[in-house]
C-alpha cells in the first residue's frame, strides 16, 4: 500500500497518454523490445529483443512446432497459438515459410487437402528428436513478448521505473 502511494505520479511529464501508450504497446508487439526503446529504456529494449528473437531462432532451427488451432482440441491448441503469435508478425512470416501461408488453424474435415498437408508438415517437423525443445523455445519467445507488453504498460503508467 505504502509502495503504491510511493509510486503514484512517478511517471513524470514524459509519461504517455493512454492513446499513445496503446500505440507503444502495439509497436512493442510488432517489434519485440521496441516498446522499451520508445520509453527510453534502450539497453533493456535491445537485450529483450535479443532474447525474444534468439528464442524464436532457436525454436525454428530446432524444428519447433508452430501451433495450429485444431477443432478437435480447441482450448489447448488455441493457447498454443496465442503463445506463438505473442512474438508478433515474425510468427506469421515463420508460418509462411513452414506451411506456405500464414496458417493458424487446421480444417475440421478429415480429408480436406489443407488438413492433410499441415498435419504432414507438423509430423515431419516433430520427427526430429529435438523438436520438443524447438517448440518450447517458440512458446517462450511469444510468452516473453507478451510479458514485455505488460511491462511496457506498467512503465508507461508510471507503476514501474
Amino acid at each position, binding site marked *: 500500500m505504502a509502495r503504491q502511494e510511493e509510486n503514484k505520479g512517478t511517471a513524470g511529464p514524459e509519461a504517455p497518454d493512454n492513446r499513445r501508450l496503446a500505440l507503444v504497446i502495439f509497436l512493442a508487439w510488432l517489434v519485440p523490445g521496441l516498446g522499451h526503446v520508445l520509453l527510453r529504456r534502450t539497453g533493456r529494449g535491445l537485450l529483450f529483443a535479443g532474447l525474444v528473437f534468439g528464442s524464436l531462432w532457436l525454436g525454428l532451427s530446432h524444428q519447433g512446432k508452430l501451433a495450429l488451432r485444431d477443432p478437435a482440441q480447441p482450448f489447448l491448441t488455441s493457447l498454443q497459438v496465442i503463445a506463438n503469435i505473442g512474438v508478433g508478425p515474425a510468427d506469421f512470416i515463420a508460418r509462411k515459410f513452414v506451411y506456405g501461408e500464414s496458417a493458424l488453424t487446421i480444417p475440421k474435415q478429415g480429408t480436406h487437402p489443407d488438413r492433410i498437408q499441415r498435419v504432414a508438415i507438423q509430423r515431419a517437423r516433430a520427427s526430429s528428436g529435438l523438436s520438443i525443445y524447438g517448440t518450447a523455445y517458440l512458446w517462450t519467445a511469444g510468452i516473453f513478448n507478451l510479458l*514485455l507488453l505488460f*511491462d511496457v504498460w506498467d512503465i508507461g503508467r508510471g507503476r514501474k521505473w
Partner: protein
Amino acid sequence: MVKSHFLHLLLYSTLVSVFFAMLLKSDRKEQLKFGGIIWIAMVGGVLALAWLMSPFPS
C-alpha cells in the same frame, strides 16, 4: 543445431533467468543475484529430479 539435451537445459535456463532478472529487477547486483537463483533452481531442480528418477529406468 544443439543436439545435447544437457546443453539445452543450460541454454534454456540461461535464457529464462536473464529475461526474468532484467524484467523484475533494476539494480545490477540484484539482477545477478535473482538471475543466479533462478538459474541454479532450474538446473539444480532438473538434475535432482533426474537423480531421483534414475533408479526407475523406462
